């Protein structure tokens, strides 16, 4: 008989950030559908929980999930919640050895989670922000026309991390580059970025590195366009769900992102299988492309979980964790590895630029906007790996 493995999906499913959680949930469902459709006696079921982006509610829902016999939790939105989940799950597993739970992180990129804050019970399937930044600076290293870089970030931990790492990495990789400016601004409070644009303009920078997301990201680019600012934006989240429609034409040719996937990769690397996969998603869950496929890593994660449970021989959290450690997996775009030392997935990354879509080289657009991503550079998986400070306590097998 088929054995059902339940995965608890915890993310905002109502309220202003529901779009993010909603997209994640659909990806998981689709990935589960695809695995289940292959037959076999192992089936996945995704059980959604609404985190409402609140730590306390998330922790209550964690209990709720455990009550329902769920032993695998996945979550992506809100570093505050991921930190709390790691803590809570570690304590829970220690206090309740018979109900151990695994936390599968598909999107929270705070480097600490796989460094000083690492845990045996946590696996990250997204590259963390330092890795992404390393990719960006690797790219910048070869761009000789970039002479001055401006850093603009949100004034909180993630923004600080991006800023500090940018300074350090640029210094190491391109000592000749001048940091023309470095600004932090309160998160989500700026309505008009024109003053910041004026600063950037005055500094004479030709590139901007920003960890901004959401409206802080889109508004920045729009304000730049309206003042005729001509720079390259190196971003983490310009391709995030809903961002391209918000940025619109203002970003074309200026905005770059670092991701593990975008919807023209299959074309550039000639992987029609992948096209079939994500177009299937777009037809079923993507609302005719309005909320298209985005997270390749969710596919990767589900496939690796499938393998790991089979390998472990049971859906027991600890055994699955050991099975995941060090596992390699072939994705359409190369082999990825789950590092045993810190439970960080090592995967290839891409720098891409927002371009007009529908051309020969840029086949698909995103979210029906007419704009799509075009790869500038592929960074091989190995090159993205970073040293870790993780000292993991592992339970006895």
């Amino acid at each position, binding site marked *: 008989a088929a054995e059902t493995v339940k995965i608890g999906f915890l993310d905002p499913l109502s309220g*202003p*950030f*529901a*779009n993010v959680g*909603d997209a994640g949930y659909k990806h998981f469902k689709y990935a589960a559908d695809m695995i289940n459709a292959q037959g076999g006696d192992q089936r996945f079921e995704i059980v959604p929980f609404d985190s409402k982006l609140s730590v306390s509610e998330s922790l209550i829902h964690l209990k709720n999930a455990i009550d329902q016999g769920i032993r695998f939790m996945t979550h992506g939105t809100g570093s505050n919640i991921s930190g709390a989940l790691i803590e809570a799950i570690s304590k829970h597993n220690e206090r309740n050895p018979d109900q151990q739970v695994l936390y599968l992180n598909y999107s929270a990129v705070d480097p600490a989670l796989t460094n000083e804050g690492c845990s045996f019970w946590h696996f990250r399937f997204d590259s963390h922000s330092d890795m992404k930044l390393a990719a960006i600076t690797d790219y910048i290293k070869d761009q000789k026309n970039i002479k001055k870089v401006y850093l603009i970030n949100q*004034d909180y931990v993630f923004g600080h991390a991006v800023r500090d790492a940018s300074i350090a990495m640029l210094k190491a990789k391109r000592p000749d580059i001048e940091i023309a400016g470095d*600004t*932090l*601004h*309160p998160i*989500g*409070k*700026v*309505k*008009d970025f*024109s*003053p*910041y644009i*004026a*600063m950037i*303009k*005055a500094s004479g920078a030709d590139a901007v590195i920003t960890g901004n997301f959401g*409206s802080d990201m*889109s*508004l920045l680019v*729009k304000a730049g*366009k*309206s*003042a*005729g600012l001509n720079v390259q934006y190196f971003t983490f989240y310009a391709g995030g*769900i*809903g*961002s391209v*429609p*918000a940025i*619109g*034409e203002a970003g074309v040719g200026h905005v770059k992102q670092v991701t593990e996937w975008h919807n023209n990769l299959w074309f550039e690397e000639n992987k029609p299988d992948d096209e079939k996969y994500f177009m299937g998603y777009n037809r079923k869950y993507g*609302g005719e492309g*309005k*909320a298209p496929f985005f997270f390749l890593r969710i596919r990767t994660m589900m496939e690796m979980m499938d393998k790991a449970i089979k390998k472990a021989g049971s859906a027991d959290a600890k055994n699955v964790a050991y099975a995941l450690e060090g596992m390699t997996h072939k994705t359409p775009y190369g082999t990825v590895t789950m590092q045993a030392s810190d439970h960080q997935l090592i995967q290839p990354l891409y720098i891409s630029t927002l371009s007009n879509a529908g051309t020969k080289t840029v086949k698909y657009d995103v*979210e*029906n*906007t007419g704009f799509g991503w075009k790869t500038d550079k592929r960074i091989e998986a190995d090159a993205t790996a970073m040293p870790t400070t993780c000292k993991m306590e592992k339970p006895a097998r």
Partner: protein
Amino acid sequence: MLEYIFFSTINSLLYGMLLFMLSSGLTLIFSMMGILNFAHASFFMLGAYFAYQISQFVGFWPGLVIAPLLVGVLGALVERYGLRSVHKHGHVAELLFTVGLAYLIEEIVMLIWGRNAVPYQIPNILDFALVNILGTDLSAYRVFMLVVSIGMFIFLFLVLTRSRIGLIIQAALTHPDGVSTLGHNVPGVFMLVFGGGSALAGLAGVIGGNYLITEPSMAAHLGPIVFVVIVVGGMGSLTGAFIASLLLGAIQTFAVGVQVSLSDLLALFGLTPEPSGLLKDFLRIQISHTGPILPYLFMVLMLIFRPKGLMGKRET
């Protein structure tokens, strides 16, 4: 440097007028009816979404007229069938009603237009650089926004000074029966004003929606700042709101350029403490980091030390 100051001045002016535009409808409603309308930003959002939808069919310009009218009618209906029955329970109840309304509008917007941002973009004819001064573009659309917000100011100014609507409502807040026995249709006037305020919010939405981002959370984003404007300006004073907008625009714009932190200041006096913990965070913060939250500080200080606001005639 000169260039920077020049542009910051222009930016602060433009930003100030944007703030004024966002808060003008609220100024009308708050100063006349005394209602802290938490749904104001929601009406603003509706204006943006309506304009987006209309522009899909007939283009931007008809939307500029139709969308605010629709929002105005909606506002009037809200007053007629909601607020009016709440009015007798006092300002707190009114305010809570608008809080609930804001919740509901956000959800309804998501139901209709989905959870993601809609691609509501600046119309093509206005999407060009009007002038290029010293290497920086001044986009035509920003100038257009400036013109409209000045128009709104003049319109409101005329309404407030040339009509007795303001007097009637102010009087009706204390003795509604007294006003009606003098022959004034109090409920009608309330409906008109609330509808008018909503329409102004809608207009701001049409114009601001594409300059900012039209998404379901835009209301929550803009909510508090509009209160700051009217409070700092002073209750019942349009000119106050106008000046406050410009002032807040200037504060925020110029703060961005001041990259001075407390520890820099101390260093000026030869002090270089190296504290840890909270104090370190405190010393680290530069004025430029705080720009967007300075208005709130300003508002709190204003309320504590000069509750009338800049130009207010009476206390809030």
